[in-house]
């Protein structure tokens, strides 16, 4: 057994087909995580060459240059420029768009100049051919001094040749630089090499121009001195180098690419753009697309969700009856299975939403959305790509927050994540429905149903507060990134169904495995809190009700009161009294942390105490009297206050976990929990005090 594992990094411009090639090379053997401390996605996969050879492939974030301008690009730069990095590759596989050779070769030659072992995969040859471009692959390979393989990542053409080339290139050592910065900035580079104690002209040049790069900390002073003594202004030097590099590239492209007559209909992009970024129809079409997405995620997803729900009820019943009665039975049924069901229920919405997003990204449409909405949304600190997460938040914040990955600006992405849970998600619906039915008469005003108007107002409250908070955060959150919007608008493509499938698979997997673990753990904690009580309180309760009719209802209600959740509910009563809530609502606030709709169930359990008839939760609550005044407990003041609390409070552990997963830091879900809790408390307080 001589199993040899080496590392391959895929680098290239955004949209050059890196991910498509990565999928083609690795299949489903992929692992997606985060780089430590930041939110850039790290994608690893395994390529099998033969029984003896295996490679770890890493899909680097797309970048136009090795001089990083964003966190994404810095990740690529760190890995490629630092031999000590644990991800430093044995081979760098650069993916280039053959129909866009001039720009795409820029990054390639930078990587060559770092003295890396480079193989070029010339992708999208089919598109180049349609544009009438003929690339002389052999000449290109000779001029660059590296192996070049023409491929079509999408159709899987040339992949086998590419694999062979990769194996054969393992021991290649790079020949000569494409552009010798050592000649361009004679003395300075030599001295920088000495300071950095390496013999790598281009790496030293980069360190000289970007002294802030991490990894150069100890040399920063010396490099700064060197710039001064050699009369080097980093920005000017870098601009000079870039212009020189491009003039060499222009020469190379002239020699190796022939422009013939375009064949086929690549004019399609122009026609579609006439419509899709039209000053009027463009927006109408976008609204229509949003409407369809919303309908599907909101309504269509309920069918598989009900199916999962029903299935879990059956499983829970079955297990409850099969396992011997007792603690284990309860833990499995109400702790683990309930938690598992609570996780799986999200899968349909995640799958549907990502089917749309992957589709829209892959066709190239999302870049157009940014184009037509940039100006409007930037005013409130958001981004053209924030619209879809925000709108999906009206169905469920969990898939919505997962979909913010497509927002490239860190600040706009964080703002979108922070405000999305304010949108009225479908889990608030049962809570609103219950309370509205209690406090709002089912009358018509000017032909409108009053209950409907109130419901609608709460959706509006969610939306408006999301925009206002975004506006506020725009001034609070500081960002080190340049806030430029310089974006390529890729040509339209028919979506690749495989890519769409991979995206859905990947997102569901991340959710189930990364978030699922934490959610199960929290579910078990919540189960514990409502099923245990200090001392022997539970036995006493069972004794007390022995022989009564309807003992089970009363026992359950009393037990909940005596449980840890009940104790906390009572503990927080003084704090929530000014909002018009009693300790029973306090308990419901705690248990509904598992999911907002749990509120209804808890309320129905806890208010059934001492009542010997089986009634619907609604009748029970409407008959409730306030012990102090003797009038109905659920006054409009209490109801509105409670609804406002649910509108603002971060009452969903799944969202908290997913915000952590997506921001890679507990700081953000914490901030979110605090600010939403604050909004909830203050608005409920004001509403209750004014209305009562």
């Amino acid at each position, binding site marked *: 057994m001589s199993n040899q594992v080496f590392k391959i990094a895929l680098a290239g411009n955004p949209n050059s087909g890196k991910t498509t090639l990565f999928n083609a090379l690795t299949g489903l053997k992929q692992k997606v995580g985060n780089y430590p401390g930041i939110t850039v996605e790290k994608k690893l996969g395994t390529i099998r060459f033969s029984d003896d050879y295996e490679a770890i492939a890493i899909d680097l974030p797309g970048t136009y240059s090795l001089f990083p*301008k964003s966190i994404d690009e810095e990740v690529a730069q760190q890995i490629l420029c630092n031999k000590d990095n644990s991800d430093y590759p044995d081979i760098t596989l650069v993916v280039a768009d053959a129909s*866009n050779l001039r720009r795409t070769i*820029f990054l390639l030659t930078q990587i060559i100049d770092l003295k890396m072992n480079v193989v070029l995969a010339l992708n999208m040859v089919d598109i180049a051919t349609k544009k009438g471009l003929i690339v002389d692959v052999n000449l290109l390979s000779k001029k660059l001094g590296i192996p070049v393989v023409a491929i079509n990542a999408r159709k899987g053409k040339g992949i086998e040749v590419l694999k062979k080339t990769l194996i054969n290139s393992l021991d290649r050592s790079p020949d000569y630089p494409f552009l010798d910065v050592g000649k361009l900035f004679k003395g300075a580079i030599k001295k920088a090499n000495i300071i950095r104690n390496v013999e790598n002209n281009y790496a030293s040049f980069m360190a000289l121009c970007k002294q802030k790069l991490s990894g150069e900390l100890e040399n920063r002073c010396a490099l700064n001195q060197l710039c001064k003594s050699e009369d080097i202004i980093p*920005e000017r030097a870098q*601009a000079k180098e*870039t212009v020189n590099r491009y003039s060499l590239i222009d020469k190379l492209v002239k020699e190796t690419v022939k422009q013939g007559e375009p064949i086929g209909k690549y004019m399609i992009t122009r026609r579609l753009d006439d419509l899709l970024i039209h*000053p009027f129809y*463009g927006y109408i079409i976008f609204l229509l697309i949003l409407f369809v997405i919303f309908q599907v995620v909101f309504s269509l997803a309920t069918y598989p969700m009900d199916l999962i729900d029903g299935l879990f009820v059956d499983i829970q019943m079955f297990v409850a009856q099969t396992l011997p009665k007792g603690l284990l039975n309860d833990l499995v049924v109400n702790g683990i299975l309930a938690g598992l069901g609570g996780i799986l229920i999200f899968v349909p919405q995640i799958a549907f939403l990502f089917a749309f997003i992957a589709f829209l990204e892959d066709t190239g449409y999302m870049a157009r959305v940014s184009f037509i909405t940039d100006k409007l949304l930037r005013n409130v600190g958001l981004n053209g790509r924030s619209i879809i997460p925000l709108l999906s938040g009206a169905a469920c914040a969990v898939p919505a927050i997962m979909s913010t990955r497509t927002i490239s600006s860190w600040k706009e992405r964080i703002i979108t994540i922070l405000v999305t849970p304010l949108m009225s998600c479908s889990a608030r619906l049962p809570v609103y429905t219950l309370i509205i039915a209690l406090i709002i008469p089912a009358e018509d005003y000017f032909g409108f149903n009053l209950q409907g108007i109130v419901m609608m107002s709460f959706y509006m409250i969610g939306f408006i507060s999301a925009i206002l908070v975004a506006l506020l955060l725009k001034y609070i959150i500081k960002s080190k990134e340049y806030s*430029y919007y*310089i974006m390529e608008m890729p040509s339209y493509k028919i979506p690749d169904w495989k890519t769409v499938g991979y995206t859905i698979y990947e997102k569901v997997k991340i959710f189930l495995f990364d978030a699922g673990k934490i959610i199960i753990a929290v579910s078990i904690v919540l189960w514990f809190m409502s099923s245990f009580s200090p001392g022997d309180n539970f036995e006493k309760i069972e004794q007390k009700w022995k022989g009564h009719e309807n003992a089970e209802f009363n026992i359950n209600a009393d037990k909940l009161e005596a449980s840890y959740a009940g104790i906390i509910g009572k503990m927080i009563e003084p704090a929530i009294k000014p909002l018009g809530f009693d300790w029973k609502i306090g308990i419901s606030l705690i248990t509904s942390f598992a999911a907002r709709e749990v509120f209804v169930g808890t309320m129905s359990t806890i208010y059934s105490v001492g009542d010997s008839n089986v009634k619907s939760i609604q009748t029970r609550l409407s008959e409730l009297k306030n012990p102090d005044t003797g009038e109905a407990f659920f006054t409009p003041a209490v109801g509105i206050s409670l609804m406002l609390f649910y509108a603002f409070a971060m009452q969903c552990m799944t969202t908290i976990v997913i915000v952590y997963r997506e921001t890679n830091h507990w700081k953000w879900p914490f901030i979110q929990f605090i600010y939403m809790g604050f909004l909830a408390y203050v608005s409920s307080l004001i509403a209750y005090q004014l209305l009562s």
Partner: protein
Amino acid sequence: MQCLAELPIGSIGEMVRIFDNNLEQKLLEMGCTPGENFKVIRKAPFGGPVAILISSYILSIRREDAKSIEVIELRNE
């Protein structure tokens, strides 16, 4: 002096220089080198970004940033 933001849709121009340092580096790297020809193909409504066709791909830039890009208009189609 002419800037990119002023050119109407359909004009063909030549890059001259970029005044903002960070913007300059980013645009140079994306192929907007001095002397390179381009065509203005779209302008987003409400003063949104401009899209230009340069070295055979479409690049969009904010209208404000386009004010710091000096160009020469060659002709208008």
